[in-house]
């Protein structure tokens, strides 16, 4: 600390355990992150006051900076939940998956990724992905096998499946943001409001601009006559509700039900 030009955070066992567990989970929702933080304090320093989550994470990130990784915060594209993942600040980011999957499996993911990015809805159908099985690098893969691999991707939170179609999990968007922008610079879509990478969202039927569902929710909050921010035409889609963590806790286990009700709007 003496003579440093920049204040670096201090790591204690509270922070180390937090990092270890966050790494194990890959990605966590904010409510689980808060619980995780509480757990780590309870185990290692139960008398300390629990630091505000934002400061806690910034502290850890200042230490992680020299390792070119950081705890990044994002938002799920379908219902605006805050999520956290430990991401690599380098560009070659299918690398994290590389340790868990074989060459042909990684190539399947790349093919699915490309279909998702090229699509209009942000979803690629199972059929279309499986039809590319013959083009995969590495060991030959049958369609039946490929179906299991796709499920593995879902299990490991790289893809989300909805009614036989696949899109990117919030984790993949967080981790591969830079990689995607660099690899598919022409096909990539961007949200008109937050300027971040957009996979799923709503689009204006007149001028074609796109917005994330949670961005739509915030932008048009309590606006009974929503209009496109770009061309001012009437906004034709249903405006979702802004995510409210308090309301979520009350209703308990309704998360899985809510997901099945959500429909895609393009």
């Amino acid at each position, binding site marked *: *600390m003496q*003579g*440093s*030009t*920049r204040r*670096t955070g201090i*790591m204690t*066992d509270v922070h*180390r*355990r937090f*990092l*270890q*567990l966050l*790494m194990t989970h890959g990605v966590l929702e904010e409510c*689980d992150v808060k*619980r*995780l933080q509480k*757990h780590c304090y309870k*185990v290692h320093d139960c008398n300390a006051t629990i630091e505000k989550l934002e400061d806690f994470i910034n502290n850890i990130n200042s*230490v*992680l*900076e*020299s*390792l*070119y*990784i950081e705890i990044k915060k994002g938002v799920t594209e379908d219902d605006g939940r805050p999520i956290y993942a430990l991401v*690599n*600040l*380098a*560009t*070659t980011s299918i690398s*994290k998956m*590389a*340790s*868990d999957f074989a060459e042909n499996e990684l190539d399947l993911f790349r093919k699915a990724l490309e279909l998702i990015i090229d699509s209009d809805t942000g979803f690629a159908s199972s059929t279309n992905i499986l039809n590319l099985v013959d083009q995969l690098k590495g060991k030959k893969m049958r369609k039946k096998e490929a179906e299991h691999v796709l*499920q593995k991707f*879902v*299990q490991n939170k790289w893809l989300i*499946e909805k009614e036989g179609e696949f899109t990117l999990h919030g984790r993949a968007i967080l981790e591969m943001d830079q990689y995607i922008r660099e690899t598919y610079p022409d096909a990539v879509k961007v949200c008109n409001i937050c300027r971040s990478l957009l996979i799923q969202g709503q689009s204006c039927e007149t001028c074609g601009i796109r917005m994330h569902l949670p961005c739509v929710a915030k932008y048009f909050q309590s606006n009974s006559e929503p209009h496109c921010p770009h061309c001012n035409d009437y906004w034709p889609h249903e405006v979702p509700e802004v995510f409210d963590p308090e309301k979520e*806790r009350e209703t*308990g*286990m309704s*998360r*899985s039900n809510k997901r*099945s009700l959500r429909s895609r709007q393009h």
Partner: protein
Amino acid sequence: MLQKPESGALPIPQAEREMDGSHDGETQPLTASQEMSPEEDLGAVREEGASEPSLTPKGARALAAKTLARRRACRRLDRTVAELVQFLLLKDRKKSPITRSEMVKYVIGDLKDLFPEIIARAAEHLRYVFGFELKQLDRKHHTYILINKLKPIEHEEEALRGDGPRLGLLMMILGLIYMKGNSAREAQVWAMLRRLGVRPSKYHFLFGYPKRLIMEDFVQLRYLNYRRVPHTNPPECEFSWGPRSNLETSKMKVLGFVAKLHKKEPQHWPVQYREALADEADRARAGASVRARASTHLW
């Protein structure tokens, strides 16, 4: 290779010197060396030190170039150390030992003469930032593993779930059991879950394989009891609350949960409500007697 944009990040050795480099006798000491001198620019550094301060533009340019080259080499070394840390963490997740040749092949590349330096610094990061000790398994074959230095916690996974989806599912089952008079037939449990779109052997994105979660995990963790109902043909099995459920929740809490689900008050079910009240009274009495016993022990 990593391509972090210029950010004026503090050079690693500064932070490292602050660290307590203690190692217990069992582990192979992997001390971080204090000097950082990338071989390729060693010549430049030595020259820099030996040359006199030059006032000519040419001399100043030469000095600036050497400084830049040295800084670039330092940054490259930093990045390699960072990549090695990430590589070791990823490899360790699969629980297979990591060999020196793998590290050189995938990460270190042509800086392999600086391997001792690089691995020492990586080890220090792993220890300080993550709480892992990098231990050399085999001096002859140069294989390494990571050991977790943080104290182990039993059932950490479960402690973290809190009111997450898996315990939410458990609450549904505990609710059903309680409302059915403190035991529910296996068939009834699966019927209720089917209505929620949960099938025993179909992989579920929140619960994994429900059958395994309920029949194995919940039973092993003592959240549920599972037993054969006597004199049934074909044989039927039933669930009841396990001892852990009684410790971690209560009839009143579960009744409250069920009531909320149905958007009613707990009193809507008078039989269960009375039973829950009695249970609360028992718990209060038990709590009081424990406290009474404890206070007598103080003397």
